[in-house]
């Protein structure tokens, strides 16, 4: 059973996602990076599920997909509102919370 390969791929996907969230300036790209992180997590869940011969991992992956879809829906709505108010989707412009 090739577990390590799956885990390495999942870690790579997750790190790519983290990088995207931290480094990209456009809000839509940040959202897409979050999806990458979730894909990495899903891969982990399915891989461990298969490794233990258990379907729970796959069930969890399905749940995560569902939540991710909802999350993207809300996230895009927020992005749309930010764009309407600021005429930009650049996260550096969203700094009204500055202390």
């Amino acid at each position, binding site marked *: 059973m090739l577990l390590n390969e799956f885990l390495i791929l999942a870690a790579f996907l997750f790190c790519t996602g983290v990088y995207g*969230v*931290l480094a990209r300036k456009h809000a839509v790209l940040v959202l897409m990076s979050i999806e990458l992180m979730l894909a990495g997590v899903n891969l982990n869940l399915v891989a461990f599920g298969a490794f233990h011969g258990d379907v729970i991992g796959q069930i969890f992956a399905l749940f995560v997909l569902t939540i991710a879809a909802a999350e993207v829906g809300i996230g895009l709505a927020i992005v749309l509102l930010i764009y309407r108010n600021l005429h930009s989707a650049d996260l550096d412009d969203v700094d009204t919370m*500055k202390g």
Partner: protein
Amino acid sequence: MFFLDKAWLIPLIPALSFVVILLFGKRMPRHGSEVGVVAVGASFALSCGAAVRWIMRVQDAKGGSALGALGRSIGHLGAQGGGEAAVLPVLHHVTWFQNGGVRLTAGIQIDGLAVVMMFVVTLISLLVHVYSLEYMRGDVRFTYFYAALSLFTASMLLLVVADNTLQLLVGWELVGVCSFMLIGHWWEEKPNSDAALKAFLTTRTGDIGLLTGVIMTFFIVQRATGVGSFNIIELNSAASSSKVGHTLILWCAAALMLAIVGKSGQFPLHTWLPDAMAGPTPVSALIHAATMVVAGVYLGARVYPVFFHGFSIGDGGINPMAAIGGITVLVGAALAFVQDDIKKVLAYSTISQLGYMVMALGVGAWTAAVFHLFTHAFFKADLFLGAGSVSHSGSHHSFDMKTDMGGLKKYMPQTYKTFVIGTLALAGIFPLAGFWSKDEILANAGHNDYKLFLVVGLIGAFMTAAYMTRCVYLTFHGEYRGAHGPHAIPHVDEAEHDPIDTMASVEHDAEVHAPHESNRLITTPLWVLSFFAVFAGFLNFPHFSKFEKWFDPHFPPAFAEIPTIAHPAAFNVFLAIGSVGLALSGIAIAWAYYEGLLPQGLSSRNALLGAGRRFLVNKLYLDYLYENVIVAGIKGPIAAGVYWVNQNIIDNVLNYAGKGTQAVGRFTYNIIDQKGVDGLVNGIGTITGDSGAEVRRLQTGRLQFYALMLVAAVVIFAGSLWIFT
């Protein structure tokens, strides 16, 4: 047995009504009066139930049903059963508190005396509640008035049902407070609040005696049984037993006698009662004629063995109780002659009648005293409410017979009729209530060898008839002397509109000012009381003697077998004819005097009579004695001494204490407060502010910076987890 076992409901209901009226009365449609009337009505119904059940209980104990006994007592005229089984009172109590092995209880003792008193108190209270709906209409403190009436009724009933002297004391003081509140109901006028204070302080003088006496009752029981108690039944049997020394009982009786003198307006502490007339008239009828003032007589009847043995009443010698009662009969009657205020005439008359009751107790006539208390409550309340009706509708809220009344007979026929019935009952004219009860007192005084008090009672009966005739004549006969005269516009019948809805209309229309009859809310109670004033006396019809049989005192057997108690005097026809004759001659002489048939102005021509009259007008100078001699004597030297102590000693102490406090205060301010406390508070503030300014820099507002810190934190925690495991 519901009505007897649950008799504690009777005081409880008005007590609850007091709380409800006080809290919610002002927001109710009739300003709380409806709660008061309903609550007292319920208590009255329960009292009637209790009376009926009690009579049945007595009949059962004495054999046969009520009807059977009725038939038998008619069949065997005068057959007084001596050896019948005693009827036990209904007793219930709960532990009030327990301290040092002494258990104090609160409870009820329902026997004949309690049943009679409950009936009287609730009936008169109910009638006064109804009467006040009209009489107090539009009053500024209408709700408060009803709350106080409820509290009074509850307290009086608490006193009546008490099974121990301590609870009796509580009720006694509560009625005193209510009396104070209600006399001073219109406290905006100085004389009214003065009268309230005078009543309160004078009765308090007597209450010292009650407190001392009640404490002594505890020890009387302790001497007899080994365990101290305030229980009335135990007290009565202890006083009747030979285990307690006579001296202790004598002192106890003397202390309780002082309480009676204060509360029941006996000479020489009677001076508060006429002044108490400053209160609203319904209050005078309820509290200062029918119920509270007889609390003293009730106390005397309740613990009668203490007085009987303490004062050696059975011996036929003069004892303090009979002497004080006898003096009061004459003093009260004499003072009633010189009053111009109709309520004060009635107040002195009440004093005189209370004197009769105390005298009756003093000559060993227990049943007669309680019976007179019973009948007097009705006709005196009738007279007071009648006087209130006159002032309400006939004399523009004045009580002065000489300047504002006269000739009211034709304007107020109903008030006139009821007032005359009350007067005849009070004067003791056959066959009204007062005749039977007064005659019983006189017969027993003669029977028990108290000839002196028999004479006193007869003179009192003569005077009573005469001064009441004067009162009726000045009020209802002759020409109207009021401000508006008899030719004012006739009045529209006030009974047609609802009395409460027009509560705001304190200002009457001009046409109301002509004398007119009061409306039904006032006349109905008058007629009810007149009914009792006529018929209540038949309860103790000679040879029928239901009152005596039904409401027999429950006293310990040793006491009940004393001849004076066991065999009261029989009806004496000659005495009855004599007393009625005296009363009639009193009425005739007074009537003749006011019709001008007798020489007028005697007191202004004859120096001796003039001096006598002045002596009476000045109320025997007793108020002068109390206020100018006793109070001033205490006030003068003691006040001067206290002033010196105040100036020289207390002021110095205070000054030094003040200076010391100032120094301590200055030190506290400079060192502790400014440096210590303020420094600490300021320091905490500064630290918080500075650290806030530093931390503020982290809050960049940039989303991705926050995300970076999140990731960094996770990495750090994950790394440390990896390292440490």
